[in-house]
């Protein structure tokens, strides 16, 4: 895997994690490399990558990192949902320019670990994850929506 270590974030850089399993302790490869290599178990998606290219390999992936070089580029939200919709149950890690105010939406799109470039205030982050007691849309977190609650028997 050569310089893969350089590419990804290490478990120490992960500030918030909503999983109990052991984090992957090696680096990630690019989407291209993932499609070529037969043994990669961790991959990193850049904003311009097509997340669907790695769907055939999900069975062997334990970690997918989605990079947000600038928080205003929202392509990674779609990438995350696409992976979850395809049944990916491994760690889905948001990395990069991530602020307090993006956390709740990212969580809803299926991210379950977060490695922000700059560490975030723990209290503020906890509040941010809990911002929405209820939600309008169906998304990757499979929460019951407001409409579901309105119409339950």
């Amino acid at each position: 895997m050569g310089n893969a270590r350089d590419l990804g974030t290490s478990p120490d850089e992960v500030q918030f994690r909503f999983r109990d399993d052991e984090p992957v302790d090696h680096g990630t490869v690019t989407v291209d490399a993932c499609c070529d290599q037969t043994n990669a178990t961790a991959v990193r998606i850049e904003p311009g990558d097509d997340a669907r290219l790695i769907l055939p390999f999900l069975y062997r992936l334990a970690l997918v990192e989605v990079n947000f070089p600038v928080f205003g580029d929202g392509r990674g939200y779609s990438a995350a949902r696409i992976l979850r919709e395809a049944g990916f149950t491994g760690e889905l890690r948001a990395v990069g320019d991530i602020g307090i105010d993006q956390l709740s939406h990212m969580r809803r799109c299926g991210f379950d670990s977060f490695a922000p470039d700059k560490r975030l205030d723990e209290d503020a982050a906890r509040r941010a994850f809990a911002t929405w007691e209820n939600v309008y849309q169906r998304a990757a977190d499979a929460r019951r929506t407001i409409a579901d609650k309105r119409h339950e028997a």
Partner: protein
Amino acid sequence: MYRYDQYDQAMVEARVEEFRDQARRRLEGKLSEDQFKPLRLMNGLYLQLHAYMLRVAIPYGTLNSRQMEALAMIAEKYDRGYGHFTTRQNIQYNWIRLEDAADALADLASVEMHAIQTSGNCIRNISSDHFAGAAADEVIDPRPYAELLRQWSSFHPEFTYLPRKFKIAVIASEKDRAAMRLHDIGIRIVRNDAGEVGAQFYAGGGMGRTPMIAPLIRDFVPIDQMITYAEAALRVYNRYGRRDNKYKARIKILVHELGAEEYIRQVEEEFAHLLSVGVEPPREELARIAAHFTDPPFADGPKTIDRSDPDFALWVDRNTHRHKHDAYVSAVISLKPVGGIPGDATADQMRIVARLAKLYSFDELRVMHTQNLLLPHVAIKDLKAVWTALDAAGLGAPNMDTIEDIIACPGLDYCSLANARSIPLAQRISERFAETGRTDVVGELKLKISGCINACGHHHAGHIGILGVDKKGVENYQLSLGGSEAEDVSLAKITGPGFDEDGVIAAVEKVTDVYLAARADGERFLDTYRRIGMEPFKEALYG
């Protein structure tokens, strides 16, 4: 009309608290302006030329008297006693203090209103036909569908950081009173041959720098798949819309560059996938929402109008619209007094309008994209009383769709992006035409003015459009002709070199001269232009 339940209420209240926290962090210096800007924008707070500006959403332009009274209260409590109604059926306050913004939002939340997503690269306030639920010509009331879309698009987790802003309009009539095909997505609610309700989708329309008319992308989406289809259309845009150049980031560029066919293919693929995932709200939700939009208890009554007062008769002819119940009409409240600021209303005027809505329109009001207000359901027997009250409040100008009914963006008087002022042009043109008595002679003529290429004043869609440009630090105006935002949608064409302020006013007069000389029986300005083409107008302007 729609009323919040405890969930809707909790959502807007949570948002107010979230914003209160964000504003506090900004004032304490924990957030830089770069970090804070997208957050305040998602709550409708801009920094404009003179101050912060707060844009409040009026979903699909519908509100009740209590909400209008709250808008008046906010104008007085936090602003300078007035507000500006916009072409997106919103209201803007021009002088809000950052320190007060969260309190203003809390006051809005107490009457089921908010400023959520009135800016930023997200799905904006959903607009609709101002005659929805009242027009004689509609297939069905489009507002329940707009409300379903409002809830879906509010705090959408995937679509909050789109390449660019995203505007959706929903109509349900052959007539287009919402510039539907000039939106990022336009939806027309239709019935198929089997009588089933569905949504017809158009995508990739817009004004701005590169105006485009949205092509049809799906003739009929079954209504219980509408949200899923919208989600597919947005996902393709979020993934592939351009992010390298702000001026090419709207969906119209994506649809244009891919070609409608390829965009449609990708959306269909995503749609099929999302149908299998299951993102549609439960069916009963639409029924629940629709129950809020049942007709008010219309009563039979007189159907004829006493036209003995000529001023009243003129207003009736110009400013009322046929209602689906024949003892009622919809009455347009003009915010275009001759020489006035298009779309501005004082707090007192808002209160008067609220009172009239309560007394005479089943407590309902609308904001029109033409920057006017509307009483949707006025009994014909009450019409004289309504007009008398409006007229006394300076709200009775009989000028709907005439050259005095000018759309003008705030322009250089308020807007930090502007190249030139829009409002003074509107004031002078309406004065000129009123003075010379030409308004009546010219008839329907939609004049629209934008202070810059962003086209908030819809100049591309004006029968006559005026665009303010910067000519070496001096205001200059480009004239264009032949646009329409209606069902006969078209984009206006530039006449030629621009004019200074006096010059463009004279030019507008000259073009109407050409029209009056050339018009055939019953032709509107636009019809004549389409028949005779640009040349005679150019000749008169530059020849």
